[in-house]
């Protein structure tokens, strides 16, 4: 278990991280979510020992980072933001260097295993500078898991990758997650919903919300969202609140030719679809779209981090 209490980091007059406390349980995947500049990277850098916190403590299974930084670094595998690598080394040289640093008993065998897992065996003799971004990411991932760490810290592991490469990285995480604690930062919301067990949302250096994805869903004030589209009159958005009770807002979500689509939010969880349908029949509107959307993490994220 990783316990973080009152973690604070200042750079000059800027407080990058302000009193963050959290507990990360064993074998869970924690998603660290937040807009750029929220303090995600700074938090992760303190977890990995690259930065020393100004205040607060970090402890893994009771071992404090301040007392035994080396012991903690041995437990942690880390993929930093932007995945920095030595361009002038070849992949095998680099992994051998990491293996020596990690004091791995049979480096060749372990590098082979990890290379197979990350599917970079054919790349071992290639110079890192020549690799595509997707392969680079896998090399960084291979280096992070080489010593089979208990804790894996991944700072935006899919940033800058195309959708296929991003999916491959998520697959790697899924293959590796057995008996591991993974802390992963991202600002890609579907990714968090896909891989994380629990989410911590950071905004301006503080925790804005934390919990399982289901718990976060219950936080949002937006109770129901319905998408409604078709050949609707121009004053639809203005008229609707007068026609159906409990409407919170009506937003234009898109248009195509004479068809428009609206996102309607209600103040209660009550389903307004029957009422909308009856209204459409009464008014003679052509309806092409009528479905309910559950409030996504994106809505929660927007609610918590804007304003």
């Amino acid at each position, binding site marked *: 278990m990783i316990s973080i209490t009152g973690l604070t980091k200042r750079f000059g007059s800027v407080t990058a991280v302000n009193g963050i406390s959290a507990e990360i349980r064993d074998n869970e995947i924690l998603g660290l979510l937040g807009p750029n500049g929220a303090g995600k990277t700074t938090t992760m850098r303190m977890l990995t020992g*690259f930065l020393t916190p100004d205040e607060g403590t970090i402890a893994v299974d009771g071992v404090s980072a301040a007392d035994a930084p080396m012991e903690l670094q041995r437990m942690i595998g880390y993929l*930093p933001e932007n995945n*920095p690598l030595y361009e*002038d080394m070849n992949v095998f040289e680099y992994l051998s*260097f990491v293996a*020596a*640093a*990690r004091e791995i008993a049979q480096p060749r065998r372990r590098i082979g295993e990890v290379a197979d897992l990350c599917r970079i065996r054919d790349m071992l003799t290639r110079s890192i500078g020549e690799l595509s971004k997707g392969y680079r990411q896998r090399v960084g991932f291979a280096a992070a898991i080489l010593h089979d760490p208990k804790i894996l810290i991944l700072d935006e592991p899919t940033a800058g990758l195309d959708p296929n490469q991003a999916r491959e990285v998520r697959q790697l995480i899924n293959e590796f997650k057995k008996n591991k604690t993974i802390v992963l930062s991202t600002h890609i919301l579907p990714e968090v919903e896909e891989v994380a067990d629990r989410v911590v949302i950071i905004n301006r250096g503080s925790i804005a919300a934390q919990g399982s994805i289901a718990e976060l869903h219950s936080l949002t004030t937006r109770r129901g969202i319905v998408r409604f589209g078709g050949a609707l009159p121009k004053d639809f958005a203005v008229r609707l609140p007068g026609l159906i009770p409990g409407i919170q807002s009506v937003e234009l979500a898109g248009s195509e030719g004479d068809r428009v689509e609206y996102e309607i939010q209600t103040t209660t969880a009550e389903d307004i679809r029957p009422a909308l349908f009856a209204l459409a029949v009464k008014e003679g509107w052509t309806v092409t779209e009528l479905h309910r959307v559950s409030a996504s993490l994106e809505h929660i994220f927007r609610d918590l981090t804007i304003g």
Partner: protein
Amino acid sequence: MNLKNVRSIAAKELALYFNAPIAYIVIACFLLLTGFFFTRPVFVQNFATIRHYLEMLPLFMLFFIPAITMRIYSEEYKTGTIELMYTLPFTRVEVLAGKYLASAAVIGAALALTLVYPLSILLLGPLDIGAAAAGFLGAFLLALMFTSMGVLGSSLTRNQIVSFILGFLLMFVFFIIGKLTMFLPPAVTYAGFDLHYDNFVRGVVDLRDVVYFCSVTGAILYITHLVTAKEQ
């Protein structure tokens, strides 16, 4: 300090030096220039001596050593790989020691290649072997001192050009104060390396001179340690 870690880091730095063309190019230029200044007195003036070469050497080192050391920290700051180094189970002292030793090894190797100069003179005529050996010892000690200054310059900035200039300036200060005997009090010129290095070139190995080079090198490395122990 774990010596195995220092060795891993030094091996990595050496791989980076010799996987890229920069070290080869810099060493080739160094040999070309020093070779010219070695051969001229030998063939034009018929002197069986490497004294001219040794006297010119500090001036070449002033350019050659920062060109080798400029990347040692700066490149890692710039590309972000320093974060990898500092999150592996290495202490910062081990990182510094590994980096310093790797740079010193590259520079030492370049200097060792110039041992062909005294060897070729031996084939042509009588060479004062003792004086040449003392001269080379002085050259190696001076190179070690300059290397520490280059590493300090590199630890201060993420820009390799700035790193080169900082290293050069630091070496230049020690270079010039030894030469301004007319304007500076003796205590100050004693801090320059000229007085100490000239003894070696003349063939005199004085323990005080050895102590001078070692203590300046140690002091500069300690300052570098203070710089790198602090966070970026």
